[in-house]
């Protein structure tokens, strides 16, 4: 009997066997960010598998790639969103789109992304897998590679599940000069589609707001729309995606940077009926609600129609509209002619939008 033991043990040990990560019931542990074997395993079986590409597979501390001649742009964005999964997307797709779009708003063709994760101890690995796979799918769909990354784990209670920071680089085509300080009096202001969809989709899931909506987040990669736009109208002056703070905040930023004023026409603003209704009963203004798949374009007046046509020809710009124009104003106010026939200032958002009482 005693000499049977080692024989059985030998049979059970497979050379090179590592217990697979339990992506069904497992949770993020401190060791997943500790730099040891468990971290390596997580990187190998999750991140590397999902994001797989030649540069990433070299497994260096940095990504090495060749750059074409010309001007490059770089942008970084941290993504925190609650809830992590929402109608129309999740933090994974959002983190790819967000940075991609920031790169694209220079008129650039995005090339590569980096992705950095801060995970909270105890976060379900199944959710992490879902998020990472969503990122991979989104990047693949957008035709861009995630070529370097990082993972850190923080103790329970010190994070909100997962935070993702992505950085992107891209190349600006020759002859394109798009910048937020280039808006000029007389220029036309365009948006690529309906406003406020993302913010309302997110709000509808917040714990203290129990309302149901069919609205989906508009999260989308805009670089192809941008490519079509700069192809049709290389003289576009400004592009920007109105994310946090909504259209109102974005236009105020541009007005400030360009030293101009703006006049919007409320009747021209594309806003879905459901978004208007939700804003109506929550006491919000759709102009301040976040978008994740829309852009604002400012171009010389003579090019506005051509630009509008180019935008409408693209699926992500089918609801595009000319919504106003740039005017001279020493105070840099963004104003609006209301559908009602009055006029008002569309100011910066102060603090968070809070619902009114009456």
């Amino acid at each position, binding site marked *: 009997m005693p000499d049977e033991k080692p024989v059985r043990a030998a049979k059970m040990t497979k050379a090179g066997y590592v217990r697979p990560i339990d992506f069904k019931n497992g949770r993020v542990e401190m060791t997943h960010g500790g730099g040891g074997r468990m971290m390596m395993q997580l990187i190998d079986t999750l991140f590397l598998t999902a994001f797989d590409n030649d540069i990433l597979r070299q497994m260096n501390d940095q990504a090495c790639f060749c750059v074409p001649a010309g001007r490059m742009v770089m942008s970084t964005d941290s993504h925190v969103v609650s809830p992590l999964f929402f109608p129309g997307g999740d933090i994974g797709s959002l983190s790819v789109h967000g940075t991609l779009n920031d790169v694209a708003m220079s008129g650039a063709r995005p090339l590569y992304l980096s992705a950095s994760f801060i995970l909270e101890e105890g976060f379900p690995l199944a959710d992490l897998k879902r998020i990472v796979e969503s990122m991979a799918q989104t990047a693949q769909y957008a035709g861009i590679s995630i070529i370097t990354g990082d993972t850190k784990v923080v103790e329970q209670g010190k994070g909100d599940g997962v935070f993702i920071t992505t950085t992107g680089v891209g190349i600006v085509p020759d002859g394109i000069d798009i910048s937020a300080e280039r808006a000029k009096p007389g220029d036309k202001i365009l948006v690529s589609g309906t406003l406020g969809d993302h913010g309302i989709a997110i709000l509808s899931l917040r714990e*203290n*707001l129990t309302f149901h909506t069919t609205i989906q987040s508009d999260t989308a990669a805009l670089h192809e729309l941008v490519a079509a736009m700069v192809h049709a109208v290389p003289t576009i002056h400004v592009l920007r995606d109105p994310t946090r703070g909504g259209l109102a905040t974005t236009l105020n930023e541009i007005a400030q940077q360009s030293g101009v004023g703006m006049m919007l026409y409320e*009747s021209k603003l594309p806003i879905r*009926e459901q978004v*208007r*209704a939700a804003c*109506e009963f929550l*006491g919000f*203004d759709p102009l301040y609600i976040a978008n994740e798949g829309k852009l604002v374009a400012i171009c010389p007046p003579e090019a506005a129609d051509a630009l509008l046509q180019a935008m409408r020809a693209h699926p992500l710009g089918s609801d595009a509209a000319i919504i106003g124009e740039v005017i001279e104003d020493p*105070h840099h*106010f963004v*104003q*609006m*002619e*209301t*559908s*009602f*026939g*009055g*006029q*008002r*200032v569309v*100011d910066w958002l*102060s*603090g968070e939008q*809070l*619902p*009114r*009482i*009456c």
Partner: protein
Amino acid sequence: MKYIDEFRDGALAKKIAANIAREVNSHRHYHLMEFCGGHTHAISRYGIPALLPDNVRMIHGPGCPVCVLPVGRIENAIQLAQQPEVILCSYGDMLRVPTNHGISLLKIKAQGADVRMVYSTADAIRIAQQNPRRQVVLLAIGFETTTPPTAIAIKQAQALGLNNFSVFCNHVLTPSAISHILQSPEIRQLGWVPLDGFIGPAHVSTIIGSQPYEYFAEEFQKPVVIAGFEPLDVMQAILMLIRQINQGRAEVENEFTRAVTREGNLKAQHLVAEVFELRRLFEWRGLGWVPYSALQIKVAFADFDAEKRFHIPALSIADHKACECGAILRGIKQPQDCKIFGTVCTPDNPIGSCMVSSEGACAAYYSYGRFRRTA
């Protein structure tokens, strides 16, 4: 959007604007006070002043619920929320109102106090049920519109036997505020503040009816037109007021007939009367101590009265010295008359309550109307 777009029709607005322009007497001025913050908000948001002749001036009244709550009561709420066992539930725009030290519910929330934004009193009841070991206090503010839901919450809490729920009651009454303004020496004796008529509250009137305003029309000879919160309602009410003034009438007229009757909502009134009683004296920001202008919880429901449960002290704290909220709330000054308006006091860093809610005169003026001053 059905039932909304009809009341925001730009073409109709132009017609009413043309009527107003035709009917005003160019030799006089018309000073009209919209009592309610809801009207102030609509006037700013839809840019109504741009549609009015220069001699028609709107004065923003004290009907903004967060604006009239005095600093002492905010201090009380903050002290309550700082007690570790307390979860303080508050409506949204109350969170940012600062005390004299610049502290607000939002700021103490950032420091760890458990302050929750609720959309309705039902949310507060739910939070109390979910947290049986914590004391859940509803910071109840507002005029007659928000009072019935608070009454319901108290009755619900009683029916559910919730011993961890109470209400810090700050409900105030519209008619007493209006009569206080009309009786103020600036208006009645000195005539400093010309006041030719009132746009009467919309939602408040759905509860109390149009009858309570009849006294003002008769006693003070001021016309009142009750109006809905949509911009066309406001335009139509202004036209009706101008007609009354031109014809020398001082009557209560009801533009908001789709929701307001003379008697109001009797069921809601009975509910309020069952749970609340008149407070002998209550301090208003801007108006000072106004007798019989607020409600307190009746003894029968004392178990749910946070003032009793937590022995909340009576604090009376003066407004920030430079802040003109008081005079603005009484119609004596306009936001741009205040020295700190738009400089020290902005929506990002409000000093006075009028700069907080978009219903507040200063915030509304700052956010929506500044270009008129600088144009």
